[in-house]
């Protein structure tokens, strides 16, 4: 079985919240080495060469993202995205609570790599316990001289601030996050300008996911080649996959990218007894489902795209033959309707409207004319919005609607709506 422990090493065995335990196990060694011996450019080069891609959803190459920062002498910011709220994703939650110093070390390395002197971590409002754990880790690390003024006798100073959100999925979107961090409504911004040019407080900013930054630690420790030698051609390294739904042992499993879909289901203990496989949603609620014919696809960015879906944040939800896909589609659409920030008409109205239509189906009062309409509308919201939330409403709905149409047809009560 290809389960590998890199970031998850020690979780469940040692109390990694304790800075002494973390340091005994080699923690903060890479950080101290980076500040003492490496230039920021070398850290950036390691990130780039490793082939590490963003683990927050879009999969953008991390080194390249950092490379977009302009050299204009303005202060730069690193913001770590720990707003994890994509349904099905629960890896950052685990990392934050179980190994907060690793999360912090990743942030420190990222900050050094881009040459920033004040880094922020945006923690989802619901993670109150995680926030408290991380705040304690910050205090311990500061007391141990891991960040602050004139680090390790050099001229480099770095401040880290933990910021807690207050409940809004859209604050995970990077520009919504920046607005929220600035004390505003978490509404995404019009792009361009991208955060690399004008982000936090209008300054060049990099937003990276918790897992992305945390991988910098083993990358520096073992070398970029160690990371890029696993995985597939364009999807390098390891990934924490959050497996949920109809499997025997849901949980976070770390593995090389390119493990097959079938293997992942087996790693999570396989299907529940007596059930048959129906579908997998491989990249969080925003992704389309993949089906039996895709079971032997490698789980990497390219193959998931080829299967008509995406790898996203690595949330892997398994559906078996007991699933009511009408209800599932309703649940998914309701989520987006609830979380839409309301700036774009297709997302705001389309989401609510689809929700209402699907609710009718759930109650067994569907109209035959709705079928054709879902098909039509289900592909018109995408592409007309400020951010990717609007584009995420349809993929799951349409993929299961096409595949499990009889389930929808069975909920039809009459042909058409009767006028007033």
């Amino acid at each position, binding site marked *: 079985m290809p389960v590998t422990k890199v970031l998850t090493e020690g979780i469940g065995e040692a109390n990694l919240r304790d800075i002494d335990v973390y340091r005994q196990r080699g923690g903060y060694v890479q950080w101290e080495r980076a500040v003492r011996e490496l230039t920021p450019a070398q850290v950036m080069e390691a990130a780039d060469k490793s082939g590490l891609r963003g683990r927050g959803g879009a999969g953008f190459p991390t080194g390249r993202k950092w490379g977009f920062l302009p050299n204009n002498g303005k202060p730069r910011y690193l913001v770590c995205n720990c707003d994890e709220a994509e*349904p099905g994703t*629960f890896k950052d939650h685990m990392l934050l609570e179980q190994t907060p110093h690793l999360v912090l070390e990743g942030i420190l390395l990222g900050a050094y790599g881009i040459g920033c002197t004040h880094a922020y971590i945006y923690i989802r*409002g619901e993670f109150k316990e995680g926030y408290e754990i991380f705040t304690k880790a910050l205090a311990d690390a500061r007391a141990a001289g891991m960040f602050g003024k004139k680090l390790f006798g050099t001229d480099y100073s770095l401040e880290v601030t933990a910021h807690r959100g207050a409940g809004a999925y859209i604050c995970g979107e990077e520009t919504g996050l920046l607005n929220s961090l600035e004390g505003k409504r978490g509404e995404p911004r019009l792009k361009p300008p991208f955060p690399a040019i004008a982000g936090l407080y209008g300054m060049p900013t990099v937003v990276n996911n918790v897992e992305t930054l945390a991988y910098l630690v083993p990358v520096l420790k073992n070398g970029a080649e160690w990371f890029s030698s696993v995985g597939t051609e364009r999807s390098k390294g390891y990934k924490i996959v959050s497996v949920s739904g109809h499997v025997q042992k849901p949980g976070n499993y770390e593995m090389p990218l390119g493990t097959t879909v079938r293997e992942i289901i087996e790693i999570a203990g396989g299907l529940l007894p007596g059930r048959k496989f129906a579908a997998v949603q491989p990249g969080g609620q925003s992704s389309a489902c993949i089906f039996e014919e895709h079971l032997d696809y490698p789980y990497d960015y390219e193959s998931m795209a080829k299967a008509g879906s995406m790898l996203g944040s690595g949330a892997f939800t398994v559906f078996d033959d007991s699933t009511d896909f009408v209800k599932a589609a309703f649940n998914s659409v309701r989520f987006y309707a609830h*979380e839409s920030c309301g700036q774009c008409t297709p997302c705001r109205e389309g989401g609510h409207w689809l929700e*209402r239509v699907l609710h009718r189906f759930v109650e067994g009062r569907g109209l035959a*004319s709705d079928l054709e309409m879902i098909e039509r509308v289900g592909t018109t919201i995408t592409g007309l919005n400020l951010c990717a939330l609007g584009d995420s409403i349809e993929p799951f709905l349409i993929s299961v609607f096409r595949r499990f149409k009889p389930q929808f047809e069975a909920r039809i009560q*009459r042909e058409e709506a009767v006028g007033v």
Partner: protein
Amino acid sequence: MHSQNPPMGVGDDVKLASQNAASGAQPHQQMDGAQAHEGETFAKLYAQLRPQCEALIAQYEEKRSALLPMMHLFQEHEGYVSHDAMRAAAEMLDLSPAVVESTVSFYTLFFRKPVGKYVLQVCRGLMCELRGAEEIHKYFREKLGVGHLETTDDGLFSYEEVECLAACDRATCMQVNLEFVYDLTPQMIDEMIDLMRAGTYKTKPMAQTAKPGRTWKVDQDLQVSRGGKAPGTLNSTRPNNAGGVGDSSGVIMLDRFVTNIGFSPARTHERTVRDARGVYELAEEGSNNNAGH
């Protein structure tokens, strides 16, 4: 240091709060249960929290960034974000109170009206639903006699079904005053509620500085979140709104109709609709489905 030469002295705080008390007739403060608490109590709280607020402001390059943390702080002490608290934040951050309220209203974890001592937020995400969340919701609703976004009459429990809590491997999960509880079973719920009623549950109760009303949501949020915007209903005495347009009471259709026959445009939307309902003898008042979906 702040107490010697703050941007606004402690004396001002009292004035600020008493101004609020004097203008306590503001309609939004009279809405169910959100009674304005005593101005002096707030002034005391404000004076007490002020140093912490200033420390929060100092963490950021721009002070407005401290708004969310400050609101968390006030909510921790008041049990909800009162208008006094929003005004205080506006003063400290040089913002208008309207801007603060608009921002606060964006975030679901800020309660703009009082809530119960235990806020029970149960996950309704898809991954939990796949593993039996609906049964758990039903159990809670029946046990407590409340629906989504409602508070029990004794002011002890506020119940909400929330989106994915990022713990889908431990379905069904929930938060009690933002502390996680995993792998829920009916038996666990029974035990938890008993302990809460006895006041011995492990999680600290929310502060409660005012009596909660039936819901902590502000009116305009409710239509959507409590299922008011359900699809057009078939087999009902109400007009059927085709294709999902309009809400479950047919409001949009009626609205259009009423506009066409020339009711006075000076009337408010709600009033027009109520009149229209009268015309059609649709005594559906208050029949919005409280259970939500």
